[in-house]
């Protein structure tokens, strides 16, 4: 079997995605510190492998639900960085036209049904999406990302059970980053592993190293195949760690500097780069080129975002849909993306750098 690190195309694509997530979040972290961004945000720096590996196992027409820590999922599912940045900058060109912000970014055109401000809020929605995809007679699947904190919510248990009894094409991916805000995962359950909960619903479950993109990709690929074959849901636990605080108010009082440092030593991007270099798939210069492209894509996104006009102020006209806008026709080509206001555009290089699977740039 060829691993992701052994295939030049896959290696480049995985690195590009992980670096774009990293650089995007570093950029917004810095912009927040400089007072350029409003509200709050939840960064997934250190968790890039789980978003990247899981989404790589999906087709463009599969759907995901995401979380408050969702920038990585969004990028990995193929979102346009410029429109994401425009959303964080609260512009009309943002994915949510400035109405959602970090916690609600969605790119329905790419099958991302949205980040979610409610812990476990996306899980029942993924089950409903899976039900729709099944009723429509497709072989598309729904994948739900959620954190360890979400597994204490009733919504998680009700949803996994419903997907199990209805044999729905859903993949549940728990990104166990060890803390629900400040509460450690050990304190909220007597189970050794989140994946042990799968047994309670008689579905397959397993734990993978969430900082190893190959492991996440393989486990998700198996779960997706299982779902596509009509055999029902799987629970994957991807063990990872967030380097940054829960949100902008976090002072890291519940964990030690040493613990954070120990996880920084398990940097998922560094590990994958080492694997790629050791396999001789790409050389240093090629790896550096991918990094540079990610940096440039994020810089472009910031420029694009900042150039966007302010949003419409007619909020009352935005509450109810005048006609149906559904995600049934997701094609993966962005054809169903929310309309941009007149005269607005997003830059090409950003979209190109964000490329979806099969569109990885030539060296």
């Amino acid at each position, binding site marked *: 079997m060829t691993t992701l690190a052994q295939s030049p195309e896959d290696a480049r694509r995985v690195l590009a995605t992980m670096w774009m997530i990293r650089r995007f979040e570093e950029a917004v972290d810095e912009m927040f510190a400089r007072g350029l961004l409003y509200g709050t945000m939840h960064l997934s720096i250190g968790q890039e492998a789980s978003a990247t590996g899981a989404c790589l196992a999906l087709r463009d027409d599969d759907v995901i639900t995401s979380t408050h820590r969702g920038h990585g999922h969004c990028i990995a599912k193929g979102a346009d960085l410029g429109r994401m940045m425009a959303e964080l900058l609260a512009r009309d060109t943002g*994915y949510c036209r*400035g109405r959602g912000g970090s916690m609600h970014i969605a790119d*329905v055109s790419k099958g991302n049904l*949205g980040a979610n401000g409610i812990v476990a809020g996306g899980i029942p929605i993924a089950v*409903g*999406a899976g039900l729709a995809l099944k009723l429509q007679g497709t072989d598309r699947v729904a994948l739900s990302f959620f954190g360890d904190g979400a597994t204490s919510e009733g919504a998680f248990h009700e949803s996994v059970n419903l997907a199990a*009894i209805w044999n729905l094409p859903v993949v549940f991916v728990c990104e166990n980053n060890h803390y629900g805000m400040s509460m450690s995962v050990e304190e909220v359950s007597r189970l050794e592993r989140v994946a042990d909960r799968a047994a309670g619903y008689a579905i397959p479950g397993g734990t993978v190293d969430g900082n190893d993109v190959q492991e996440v990709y393989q486990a998700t690929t198996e779960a997706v195949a299982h779902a596509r074959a009509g055999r029902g849901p799987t629970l994957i636990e991807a063990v990872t760690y967030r380097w940054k605080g829960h949100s902008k108010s976090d002072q890291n009082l519940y964990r030690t500097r040493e613990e954070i440092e120990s996880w920084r030593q398990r940097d998922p991007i560094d590990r994958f780069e080492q694997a790629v270099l050791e396999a001789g798939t790409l050389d240093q210069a090629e790896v550096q080129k991918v990094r540079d492209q990610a940096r440039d894509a994020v810089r472009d996104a910031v420029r694009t975002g900042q150039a966007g006009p302010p949003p419409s102020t007619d909020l009352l006209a935005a509450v109810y849909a005048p006609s149906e806008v*559904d995600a049934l026709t997701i094609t993966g080509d962005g054809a169903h993306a929310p309309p941009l206001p007149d005269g607005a555009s997003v830059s090409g290089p950003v979209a190109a750098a964000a490329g979806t699977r099969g569109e990885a740039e030539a060296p």
Partner: protein
Amino acid sequence: MTTTETQVETMTFAEAIRAALTDEMEADERVFVLGEDIGVYGGAFGVTTGMLDRFGAERIRDTPIAEEAIMGAAVGAALCGMRPVAEMQFSDFTAHAMDQLVNQAAKVYFMLGGAVSVPLVLRLPFGSGTGAAAQHSQSQEAWYAHTPGLKVVMPSNPADAKGLLHAAIRDPNPVVFMEHKLLYRTASGPVPKGDEAIPLGVAAVPREGSDLTIVATGIMVSRALAAAEELAAGGIETTVVDPRTLKPLDDATILERVRATGRALLVQEAPRTAGFMAEIAARIAESDTLHYLLAPVRRLSGLDAPIPYNPDLEKASVPQVPDIVQAGRTLVEES
């Protein structure tokens, strides 16, 4: 047989709802129903009786007792091109499903910048009068009406139930469809044949009179009409306005009818404080209709108390026909 007779048939409230569900499911394969005991059992109130045989278990989906998953599954299916109709066995159980209803269904279209709509219907059997006590008898329409993004419908008779449910299922937004439990079997009346929708946001005026305007919702409409008969015997002529949908609200009709009589009696089953009739009172007060009033607006509501079990107490805790008659008479006589 006259033309009129061929164009209507007599149905109970429950039959009218079933007829609308059936019509919509036959016309649109995206429509499906999910909820607790809606299959073989036919639903706790018999609304879906026989539908399992007709449409099969894929489209008449019995669920576990898991209201949040029911609601969330409806949201997710709606986002992906289906038109789910979810039933809560009792309206009260929506408390279990509020995150998916309030934080997800109601907000997704707005929050995602209009990228995707959430066309679903949540059917809620609600209200007191069955001896089911405090956790199975509530009237929570104000909760939903207070949530931007939800539409709220409350029919008072079989014809409206059918026509409004057609509109609700075809609407691209989440619609909370409130069905008073006492109406299911006791309300029976002519329902037009065919599948014509009654537009959301249009009030009905089932009775017209010059002395007093009663605005009533749900089962209070039939009580208001009965009260209007008694008042007429005493020489007081009453207009009855049934908003039919609380959101969007046809306040133009309400205000016009209140201006015409100069007296407003607002009747709801729900508890008084922050109830929906407080909203109607406020709209009267903040419009020029205020200047037409011959007397202060009067509200008749349920008590600010949970619904009790004892049948006499249960009856006493929400407005009954004699209460409406008395309040109407007082309002007219004192002004």
